């Protein structure tokens, strides 16, 4: 690991200042010379691999006193960005009112990592693409813009089939983000000019021609909270993986339904493990609204969710698998007792 300067930020303004000072508009945030440290489960790992090389680390954990609250009220849910994944997963009211959130967190990583990792850090988690993580491969457009993509014709079994470009097919690895995007969450961002909010769906950027730019965050900006309106007791997070626990998704689905008298009034479907960014399947949702659920509808919805999918040599199986995951998640959501 390269040497760095360690700083503790004891209030948000100073964290923002320290991070802004080191950032430039032209340098992607992922390569900014100062990086915030929350749980450290991605950052320290990638620094050991020499993938991330910050000259300064700004430890924002002291902000957790004001940035880790879990609040439920009549409007909905507000989660501080420094809340630990384990605390939110274990929260009884979140398990009741937002099972998709609780389970997306519970099924991620391991108990140790969930104790360390924060919600804000989790949505910023970087891809597990093995070519991105191994600097002996020079050709990674995410690490070295313009250098090419070793995964394209390499071992790409874990890679994305949705939201890809001819520059990058790295999959977004997280779980929680699918729950957030499905529930139309907003993200609260603290920066130089104060606090702003935007739809969570606008946080991540598909790779396009600039895979090195992963989010719309500006230099010096930090995620301070997430908010969800309403309650979603009829919601599930289903995750398939190579082993039963402690593994990234091959394919996952976050599904939330509002069903009244057998008719689906509102439906949310998001996909994980298969896309370059947290993925909302709006075409699939549209097919569900106003309908009564049956297996034929589930099949059409699953087909619609993957209509644009494009597999490569080793990952085409994710399209068939993903459709089954969507179907199964819908069936679970429809039949769950709330």
């Amino acid at each position, binding site marked *: *690991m390269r*040497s*760095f*300067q*360690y*700083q*503790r*930020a*004891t*209030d948000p*303004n*100073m*964290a923002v*200042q*320290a991070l802004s000072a080191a950032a430039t508009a032209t340098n992607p945030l992922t390569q900014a010379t100062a990086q915030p*440290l929350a749980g*450290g*489960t991605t950052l*320290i*790992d990638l620094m*050991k*691999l020499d993938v991330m090389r910050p*000259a300064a*680390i*700004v*430890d924002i*954990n*002291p902000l*957790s*006193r004001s940035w*880790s609250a879990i609040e439920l009220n009549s409007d909905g849910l507000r989660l501080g960005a*420094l809340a*630990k994944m*384990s605390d939110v997963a*274990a929260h009884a009211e979140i398990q009741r009112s937002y099972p998709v959130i609780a389970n997306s967190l519970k099924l991620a*990583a*391991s*108990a*140790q*990592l969930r*104790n*360390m990792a924060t919600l804000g850090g989790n949505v910023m988690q970087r891809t597990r693409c093995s070519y991105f993580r191994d600097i002996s491969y020079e050709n990674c457009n995410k690490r070295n813009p313009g250098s090419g993509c070793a995964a394209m014709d390499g071992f790409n079994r874990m890679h994305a089939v949705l939201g890809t470009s001819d520059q990058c097919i790295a999959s977004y690895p997280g779980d929680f983000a699918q729950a957030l995007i499905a529930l139309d969450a907003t993200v609260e961002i603290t920066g130089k000019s104060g606090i702003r909010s935007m739809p969570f769906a606008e946080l991540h950027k598909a790779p396009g021609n600039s895979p090195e730019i992963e989010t719309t965050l500006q230099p010096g900006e930090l995620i301070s909270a997430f908010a969800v309106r309403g309650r979603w007791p009829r919601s599930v997070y289903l995750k398939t993986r190579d082993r*039963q*626990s*402690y593994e990234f998704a091959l394919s996952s689905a976050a599904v939330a339904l509002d069903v009244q008298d057998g008719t689906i009034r509102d439906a949310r479907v998001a996909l994980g493990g298969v896309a370059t960014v947290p993925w909302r399947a709006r075409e699939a949702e549209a097919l569900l609204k106003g309908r009564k659920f049956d297996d034929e509808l589930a099949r059409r919805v699953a087909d619609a969710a993957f209509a644009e999918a494009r597999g490569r040599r080793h990952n085409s199986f994710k399209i068939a698998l993903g459709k089954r995951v969507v179907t199964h998640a819908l069936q679970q959501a429809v039949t769950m007792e709330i």
Partner: protein
Amino acid sequence: MPDNSSSRQSGFDRRAFMAGAAGGALVPLTARAAAQDASAPAAQDPSLPVDVTLRVNGADKRLHIDARTTVLDALREHLGLTGSKKGCDHGQCGACTVLIGDRRVVSCLTLALAAEGQEITTIEGLATNDRLHPMQQAFVDNDAFQCGYCTPGQIMSAVACVKEGHANSEADIREYMSGNICRCAAYPNIVAAVKQAAPEIMKG
């Protein structure tokens, strides 16, 4: 979440720094001499070691270490506590699991500087005098290891697993112990050990 913003244990004079930092709340860890020079609150030189005090198994340990040092390396290389094991060094195997406060974490991805001011418990801090902790005894009783390399991490993780309330069924134990990999695949015996120790630990 414990307050780890305090710099008192590092010997860093926050007041002097603040006076020179235009009211800033950013606290670079600096060598003591530099920090006391309020007129020049120089940022820490990354090439120089920093002072850190870690609280390990109930005792304060003063260290003069590189800022890059993880809790795992601080324990093993600087404090002679080699019970916590370095397996993957990337947070994937769980061999380095320790408790920080009452939470199990992987010490290989935790910077020592970020753990300052918090209570760290390692496998060496589990037994009371000559009496093994119930989880240690359960691992012995159930032959819950072969080579033993993952065992300290398994035991620390298992103690937390029980206290979290995640050891109420074999399925729960398997799910919540999944962050500890055993290459010898002693899993059935590990599950048995956790089941044996759980009631005794919950009893207190």
